[in-house]
Protein backbone atom coordinates (compact mmCIF):
# COMPACT_ATOMS: atom_id res chain seq x y z
CA UNK A 1 0.00 0.00 0.00
CA UNK A 2 1.40 3.37 -1.01
CA UNK A 3 0.38 6.05 1.46
CA UNK A 4 1.68 8.99 -0.57
CA UNK A 5 1.56 8.55 -4.32
CA UNK A 6 3.90 10.70 -6.42
CA UNK A 7 5.87 11.40 -3.31
CA UNK A 8 8.82 13.11 -4.99
CA UNK A 9 6.56 15.38 -7.04
CA UNK A 10 4.61 16.34 -3.94
CA UNK A 11 7.73 17.04 -1.92
CA UNK A 12 9.39 19.11 -4.63
CA UNK A 13 6.34 21.35 -4.92
CA UNK A 14 6.06 21.57 -1.13
CA UNK A 15 9.74 22.45 -0.68
CA UNK A 16 9.75 25.05 -3.45
CA UNK A 17 6.53 26.75 -2.39
CA UNK A 18 5.09 26.36 1.12
CA UNK A 19 8.38 25.50 2.83
CA UNK A 20 10.40 28.10 0.94
CA UNK A 21 7.87 30.77 1.90
CA UNK A 22 7.98 29.70 5.54
CA UNK A 23 11.78 29.66 5.63
CA UNK A 24 11.93 33.11 4.01
CA UNK A 25 9.25 34.80 6.09
CA UNK A 26 8.56 32.70 9.18
CA UNK A 27 4.88 32.67 8.13
CA UNK A 28 2.77 29.83 6.85
CA UNK A 29 0.65 30.30 3.74
CA UNK A 30 -1.83 27.58 3.01
CA UNK A 31 -2.92 29.22 -0.22
CA UNK A 32 0.25 27.79 -1.72
CA UNK A 33 -0.06 24.39 -0.03
CA UNK A 34 -0.85 21.38 -2.16
CA UNK A 35 -2.66 18.59 -0.32
CA UNK A 36 -1.45 15.08 -1.10
CA UNK A 37 -3.55 13.33 -3.70
CA UNK A 38 -3.84 9.58 -4.18
CA UNK A 39 -5.42 8.16 -7.29
CA UNK A 40 -5.84 4.70 -5.79
CA UNK A 41 -7.79 3.74 -2.70
CA UNK A 42 -6.39 0.71 -0.87
CA UNK A 43 -8.33 -2.52 -1.23
CA UNK A 44 -8.96 -4.91 1.63
CA UNK A 45 -11.39 -7.39 3.06
CA UNK A 46 -14.11 -6.28 5.40
CA UNK A 47 -14.54 -7.78 8.85
CA UNK A 48 -17.49 -8.90 10.93
CA UNK A 49 -17.36 -6.00 13.36
CA UNK A 50 -19.32 -7.76 16.07
CA UNK A 51 -16.59 -10.41 16.19
CA UNK A 52 -13.62 -8.09 15.74
CA UNK A 53 -11.30 -6.09 17.92
CA UNK A 54 -11.26 -2.40 17.04
CA UNK A 55 -8.49 0.09 17.72
CA UNK A 56 -9.19 3.84 17.91
CA UNK A 57 -6.81 6.31 16.30
CA UNK A 58 -7.35 10.02 16.94
CA UNK A 59 -5.69 13.08 15.44
CA UNK A 60 -7.31 15.52 17.88
CA UNK A 61 -4.09 15.92 19.86
CA UNK A 62 -5.33 14.17 23.00
CA UNK A 63 -2.82 13.33 25.73
CA UNK A 64 -2.75 12.57 29.45
CA UNK A 65 -2.41 16.00 31.01
CA UNK A 66 -0.89 14.82 34.29
CA UNK A 67 1.72 12.46 32.92
CA UNK A 68 2.48 13.13 29.25
CA UNK A 69 4.17 15.99 27.44
CA UNK A 70 1.71 17.89 25.25
CA UNK A 71 2.14 17.83 21.51
CA UNK A 72 4.08 20.83 20.19
CA UNK A 73 0.90 22.44 18.93
CA UNK A 74 2.32 25.91 18.15
CA UNK A 75 5.04 24.45 15.89
CA UNK A 76 4.32 25.69 12.33
CA UNK A 77 6.03 22.58 10.94
CA UNK A 78 3.89 20.18 12.99
CA UNK A 79 4.63 17.51 15.60
CA UNK A 80 5.03 13.97 14.22
CA UNK A 81 5.10 12.13 17.54
CA UNK A 82 2.33 10.07 19.05
CA UNK A 83 0.96 9.24 22.48
CA UNK A 84 -1.01 6.28 23.71
CA UNK A 85 -3.37 6.12 26.64
CA UNK A 86 -5.95 3.68 27.96
CA UNK A 87 -9.40 3.79 26.38
CA UNK A 88 -10.77 3.67 29.93
CA UNK A 89 -9.20 7.05 30.78
CA UNK A 90 -11.67 9.51 32.33
CA UNK A 91 -12.08 12.61 30.16
CA UNK A 92 -11.04 14.74 33.14
CA UNK A 93 -7.50 13.37 32.66
CA UNK A 94 -7.25 14.19 28.95
CA UNK A 95 -6.29 17.48 27.39
CA UNK A 96 -5.95 18.39 23.72
CA UNK A 97 -2.85 20.02 22.18
CA UNK A 98 -3.73 21.09 18.63
CA UNK A 99 -3.86 24.72 17.54
CA UNK A 100 -5.76 24.22 14.30
CA UNK A 101 -9.30 23.70 15.44
CA UNK A 102 -11.64 25.52 17.82
CA UNK A 103 -11.67 23.59 21.11
CA UNK A 104 -15.08 24.90 22.21
CA UNK A 105 -16.91 21.70 21.23
CA UNK A 106 -14.33 19.22 22.55
CA UNK A 107 -13.96 21.13 25.82
CA UNK A 108 -17.73 20.87 26.30
CA UNK A 109 -18.00 17.24 25.22
CA UNK A 110 -14.79 15.33 24.38
CA UNK A 111 -16.83 12.67 22.62
CA UNK A 112 -17.23 14.96 19.62
CA UNK A 113 -13.67 13.87 18.77
CA UNK A 114 -12.78 11.06 21.19
CA UNK A 115 -15.74 8.67 21.38
CA UNK A 116 -14.39 6.51 24.20
CA UNK A 117 -17.63 6.03 26.11
CA UNK A 118 -19.62 5.50 22.88
CA UNK A 119 -17.21 2.78 21.78
CA UNK A 120 -17.39 1.09 25.19
CA UNK A 121 -21.18 1.11 24.93
CA UNK A 122 -21.03 -0.40 21.45
CA UNK A 123 -18.94 -3.26 22.81
CA UNK A 124 -21.46 -3.82 25.61
CA UNK A 125 -24.25 -3.83 23.02
CA UNK A 126 -22.40 -6.41 20.94
CA UNK A 127 -21.96 -4.15 17.91
CA UNK A 128 -18.17 -4.19 18.29
CA UNK A 129 -16.52 -7.44 19.34
CA UNK A 130 -13.87 -5.80 21.49
CA UNK A 131 -12.11 -2.46 21.87
CA UNK A 132 -8.35 -2.41 22.10
CA UNK A 133 -7.42 -1.07 25.50
CA UNK A 134 -5.13 1.68 24.21
CA UNK A 135 -5.88 4.70 22.01
CA UNK A 136 -3.31 5.87 19.46
CA UNK A 137 -3.23 9.66 19.52
CA UNK A 138 -1.45 12.30 17.50
CA UNK A 139 -1.95 15.95 16.62
CA UNK A 140 -3.32 16.21 13.11
CA UNK A 141 -1.61 19.41 11.96
CA UNK A 142 0.99 17.65 9.79
CA UNK A 143 1.94 19.83 6.83
CA UNK A 144 4.99 17.79 5.89
CA UNK A 145 3.30 14.72 4.43
CA UNK A 146 6.60 12.92 3.89
CA UNK A 147 7.34 13.16 7.63
CA UNK A 148 3.90 11.77 8.36
CA UNK A 149 4.69 8.79 6.14
CA UNK A 150 8.31 8.34 7.29
CA UNK A 151 8.06 9.14 11.01
CA UNK A 152 4.53 9.00 12.35
CA UNK A 153 2.79 6.28 10.45
CA UNK A 154 5.44 3.55 10.89
CA UNK A 155 4.95 3.99 14.63
CA UNK A 156 1.16 3.92 14.23
CA UNK A 157 1.38 0.77 12.10
CA UNK A 158 3.67 -0.93 14.61
CA UNK A 159 1.21 -0.31 17.43
CA UNK A 160 -1.75 -1.38 15.34
CA UNK A 161 -0.02 -4.60 14.33
CA UNK A 162 0.97 -5.31 17.95
CA UNK A 163 -2.58 -4.69 19.16
CA UNK A 164 -4.10 -7.77 17.56
CA UNK A 165 -6.93 -5.59 16.24
CA UNK A 166 -8.69 -6.58 13.04
CA UNK A 167 -10.11 -3.10 12.41
CA UNK A 168 -9.19 0.53 12.99
CA UNK A 169 -11.30 3.67 13.30
CA UNK A 170 -9.65 7.02 12.60
CA UNK A 171 -11.46 10.06 13.93
CA UNK A 172 -9.82 13.22 12.64
CA UNK A 173 -10.28 16.62 14.18
Amino acid at each position, binding site marked *: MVMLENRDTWYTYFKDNWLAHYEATGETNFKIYQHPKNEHAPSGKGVTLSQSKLILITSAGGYLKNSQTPFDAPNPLGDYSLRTFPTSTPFSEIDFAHDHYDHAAVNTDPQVLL*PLRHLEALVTEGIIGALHDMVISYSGYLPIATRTVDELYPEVLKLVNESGAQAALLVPS
Partner: protein
Amino acid sequence: MNGIATTTTSWNAGVSRLVNPPRLVITKLARGATLGKPHDSDQQRRVLLATLNRLNDDAPLDHLILDEALDPQ
Protein backbone atom coordinates in the same frame (compact mmCIF):
# COMPACT_ATOMS: atom_id res chain seq x y z
CA MET B 1 -2.59 -0.89 7.22
CA ASN B 2 -1.43 -4.39 6.47
CA GLY B 3 -4.41 -6.71 6.83
CA ILE B 4 -6.33 -4.28 9.05
CA ALA B 5 -9.68 -2.97 7.88
CA THR B 6 -9.84 0.80 8.35
CA THR B 7 -12.58 3.38 8.29
CA THR B 8 -12.81 7.09 8.88
CA THR B 9 -15.23 9.98 8.84
CA SER B 10 -14.64 13.60 7.88
CA TRP B 11 -16.38 16.96 7.59
CA ASN B 12 -13.72 18.01 5.10
CA ALA B 13 -14.88 16.27 1.96
CA GLY B 14 -12.43 18.01 -0.34
CA VAL B 15 -9.20 17.08 1.39
CA SER B 16 -10.42 13.65 2.48
CA ARG B 17 -11.38 12.67 -1.06
CA LEU B 18 -7.90 13.63 -2.27
CA VAL B 19 -6.25 11.20 0.13
CA ASN B 20 -8.65 8.46 -1.06
CA PRO B 21 -9.02 6.26 2.01
CA PRO B 22 -10.54 2.80 1.63
CA ARG B 23 -13.69 3.61 3.61
CA LEU B 24 -14.86 7.19 4.16
CA VAL B 25 -18.03 8.70 5.56
CA ILE B 26 -18.50 12.39 4.76
CA THR B 27 -20.68 14.70 6.84
CA LYS B 28 -21.58 18.37 6.95
CA LEU B 29 -20.25 18.68 10.48
CA ALA B 30 -17.34 20.92 11.35
CA ARG B 31 -13.72 21.09 12.31
CA GLY B 32 -13.43 20.26 16.00
CA ALA B 33 -16.79 18.41 16.10
CA THR B 34 -16.22 15.53 13.72
CA LEU B 35 -18.77 13.22 15.30
CA GLY B 36 -21.49 15.75 16.01
CA LYS B 37 -22.84 18.39 18.32
CA PRO B 38 -21.64 18.46 21.92
CA HIS B 39 -23.86 16.30 24.14
CA ASP B 40 -25.93 15.13 21.16
CA SER B 41 -25.29 11.45 21.77
CA ASP B 42 -27.85 10.37 19.19
CA GLN B 43 -26.08 12.26 16.41
CA GLN B 44 -22.64 11.16 17.54
CA ARG B 45 -23.78 7.52 17.56
CA ARG B 46 -25.37 7.84 14.12
CA VAL B 47 -22.13 9.15 12.63
CA LEU B 48 -20.05 6.61 14.54
CA LEU B 49 -22.24 3.67 13.55
CA ALA B 50 -22.41 4.69 9.90
CA THR B 51 -18.60 4.90 9.88
CA LEU B 52 -18.05 1.64 11.75
CA ASN B 53 -20.58 -0.31 9.69
CA ARG B 54 -18.46 0.27 6.60
CA LEU B 55 -15.91 -2.09 8.12
CA ASN B 56 -18.23 -4.99 7.32
CA ASP B 57 -17.69 -4.43 3.58
CA ASP B 58 -14.66 -5.04 1.37
CA ALA B 59 -12.75 -1.91 0.34
CA PRO B 60 -12.49 0.27 -1.54
CA LEU B 61 -16.00 1.61 -1.10
CA ASP B 62 -17.71 4.59 -2.62
CA HIS B 63 -17.69 7.41 -0.10
CA LEU B 64 -20.87 7.57 2.00
CA ILE B 65 -22.36 11.04 2.42
CA LEU B 66 -24.43 11.70 5.53
CA ASP B 67 -26.76 14.63 5.96
CA GLU B 68 -25.48 15.33 9.48
CA ALA B 69 -24.71 18.93 10.39
CA LEU B 70 -24.25 21.02 13.49
CA ASP B 71 -27.25 23.17 12.64
CA PRO B 72 -30.53 21.88 11.20
CA GLN B 73 -30.43 22.03 7.40
